[in-house]
């Protein structure tokens, strides 16, 4: 029951990110979503297992702390305007969620028994989280929100890997976490550079 609630909360954080209009709030919500990922680790592994503790450390370090920290620091350093809005308006963006919901329900109907003790509804929430990540990427304009959408998408894939395949070998998992973080760092630094070159051009003019 508690795990179903965690999966539901994960989905809700995704919906909030999709329609939220303040950047700093979106970053806080993605940090909360990162923290909630720990719940699914409890469901799949026993706390006596090495893999359990490693995953908890990775999630807390990369998803709950480092990623939001990088985004918040960039927000402050570039003195960005906080307000952002979806490409197609709030209502239409929310409506786009519905076809995904139907598609996910159809996919999950065809699934056989799940390898760990997870309810099918949990899987539906996870698939919807992945869909929300893709939707955020399509429906939002601001580059920080695009990064947040990417993080949400990665979170969904991580959860799916965990519940369908009981995770990956630890080395691959670690590299995947580091890789995702580096992509975010690179994305942030590239956008910071774009701003830098724009200002340089303005000064020259």
């Amino acid at each position, binding site marked *: 029951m508690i795990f179903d609630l965690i999966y539901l909360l994960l989905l809700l954080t995704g919906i909030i990110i999709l329609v939220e209009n303040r950047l700093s709030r979106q970053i806080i919500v993605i940090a909360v979503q990162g923290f909630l990922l720990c719940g699914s680790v409890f469901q799949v592994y026993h706390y006596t297992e090495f893999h359990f503790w490693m995953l908890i450390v990775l999630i807390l370090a990369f998803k709950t702390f480092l990623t939001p920290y990088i985004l918040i620091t960039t927000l402050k350093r570039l003195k960005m305007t906080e307000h952002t809005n979806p490409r197609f308006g709030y209502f239409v963006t929310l409506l786009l969620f519905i076809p995904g919901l139907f598609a996910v329900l159809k996919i999950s109907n065809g699934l056989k028994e799940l390898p760990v003790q997870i309810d099918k509804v949990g899987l539906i929430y996870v698939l919807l989280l992945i869909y929300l990540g893709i939707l955020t990427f399509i429906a939002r304009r601001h580059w920080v929100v695009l990064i947040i959408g*990417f993080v949400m998408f990665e979170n969904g894939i991580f959860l799916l890997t965990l519940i*369908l395949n009981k995770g990956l*070998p630890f080395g691959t998992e670690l*590299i995947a976490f580091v*890789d995702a973080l580096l992509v975010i760092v*690179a*994305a942030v630094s590239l956008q910071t*550079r*774009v701003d830098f070159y724009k200002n340089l*051009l303005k000064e020259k003019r």
Partner: protein
Amino acid sequence: MNKYTLTAVSLVIFLNLFSSVYFAFTKSDASVRRWSPLIGAFYFVLIISWFMTDFATQWVLIEACTLIGALLISMSQNEKATNVAWKFLFLNSFGMGIAFLGLVILSYGVHNVVSMNINVIMQNIQAKQNPIIEVGIWLIVFGYSTKLGLFPNQYWVSDTYSESPSQISALFASLIPVSVSIALRPLVKMDELMLISHFSSKNALLVMGVATMIYSILTLYQVRDIRRITSLIALFHNGAIGVFLWLNTSDEIFYLALTSLVVIKALIFASLGVLRLDLSSRIIDEINPKDGLHPISKFIYLGSIFMAFAVPISPMFLSDMMAMRMAVKHSYYWYTLVPCLGITFFAITLYKILPLMNIDSRGFKPENIKMIRIRIGLTLFLFAIAILIAAYGFYMFSTGGLDNA
């Protein structure tokens, strides 16, 4: 031809391009020494991915090249290139994310024991036919097609290749499609093993490939920028790879085609590097014939375009011939469409670049003379390698090799 031949040729090509970056880099004030480890890392990460037997590790390595690649694009140090690097990073990371999602679904659908080993999955796929496997393969193919730059995810290709330094474009254009092709090949085989298929991902690859070729032709007609024209040649070849993968040729022909691709892509971008250094503007219509151009620069570029399409001494010609032969053998007569598209593309390319021949001949610009000589030397070396591979291929063919049966 096999994976080891491909690796050896790629190493030579890499050393050639690296020398060009190290000794003749002019695109920006960037410290080449500082960027060198990244260029090396880009190459090694992709080469290692060719030898992986595990889908997940292969994915991690190809994804790592996205990250390194984005940084290398920004080496040009201007706003446009940085924007392109951002686009490259994000589109590719999302594409790779979708591919990973597919890997997770595929490995779940295929077996009872958790494994992403390609051989294990291949062995179990026939016994466990189900729609989940189909969805998994489809997602992986779609995700990797983003990295290959196939329609509808082709937008990053021409931007990236035209805004990066020409040596970096050469490295990208020659190594990324090859790595993705090697990653996609087992998936095409898996798709063939599916007895009941609702939507064949192999056919999707074919459709995306042909659509990419048609898109390149339509876009080429409107382009006046010499860098963009060269990028579209690379994009056209990427589309052709999609179709070639669909054919699922024997290993010998597959690696011959990939080796040809590595050399020819490196050659066209290396010759572009020579031309751009000697040319006053990248927009062909804006070049005043009085500005002048050295005949060697003109003919090297024109020669490389011919090598990319039509010349019988080119390995590309040989690969196309082999693919065509296999298609006819299997009664895929529609495959003649591919060379027809190639001829159309080649004709439009010639129409676009022949005005370069009207530019008055002159000596090299004194400020670039050292750099341009180095680049010409390295490009001529690439020409020699291309001709050697073609000669080797024709020799093999005439002595009963390259699946002559």
